[in-house]
């Protein structure tokens, strides 16, 4: 068992120290790089906080669209034969993309809605501000 605090907290505090203590004394040319570093650290921290829940949620959202059970683990299956959520989501996205490309999903509002929810989930990690705005309006932004 590791001692506390955990990775997410370490990252958050390291980021705050860089922005509050280091950044003000940096030459202007280096501040842009400091902000890139801060953004990378913030995204990494949010990814750690979300953990494997992101792929699991996307799997649950995609399964009914493809007529699959969300958790199709055969009874008694060996650990190596069980599809992880990441693997399942990748496979499901390829399948859905092929069906969209093939015209089998033309005009399909359920697929559009699921794709938009999936994007918003990723956007909450990479840019919570834009994600919040998009959720608030909950309609096309243009």
């Amino acid at each position: 068992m590791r001692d506390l605090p955990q990775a997410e907290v370490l990252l958050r505090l390291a980021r705050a120290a860089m922005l509050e203590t280091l950044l003000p004394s940096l030459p202007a040319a280096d501040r842009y790089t400091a902000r890139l570093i801060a953004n990378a650290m913030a995204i990494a921290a949010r990814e750690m906080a979300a953990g494997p829940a992101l792929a699991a949620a996307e799997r649950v959202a995609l399964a009914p669209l493809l007529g699959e059970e969300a958790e199709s683990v055969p009874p008694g299956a060996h650990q190596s034969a069980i599809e992880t959520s990441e693997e399942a989501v990748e496979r499901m996205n390829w399948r859905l993309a092929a069906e969209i490309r093939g015209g089998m999903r033309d005009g399909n509002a359920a697929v559009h809605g699921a794709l938009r929810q999936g994007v918003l989930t990723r956007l909450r990690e990479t840019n919570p501000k834009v994600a919040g705005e998009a959720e608030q309006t909950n309609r096309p932004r243009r």
Partner: protein
Amino acid sequence: MTLVHQDFRTGNYMVDEGGLTGILDWEFAAWGDPMSDIGWFCARCWRFGNDALEAGGIAPRAPFYRGYERASGRTIEPGRVAFWEVMAHIRWATIALQQGARVSGGEDSLDLALTGRVYPPELELAILDMTPPPAWSAT
């Protein structure tokens, strides 16, 4: 078909008090639909936060269209421009994903890593919002 620049956007031209002084970055130039350059220039992903100024974040769309039509003698087709604005987001998202893939391929660059991670979701959201289900047809 005309000569198209393929990266004509705010950031790739130079101006001074007298007007346009230069157009940069011609490495993507090729033959194509002239409306593609209009769509790239007007696409929301190249307005740099000035969403209301639909022509490159620097002007409303109408005076830009008027100036283009006057200078070129060509009529702008809004439907074709709308198509190319969606394509602009798809093309930029693809480029961003490819830049992120270069990091997975061993090229250590924070710029490339952030480009690959930050831009695709925002672009994908814009693409979905520009193409509601009634516009979905694979044929």
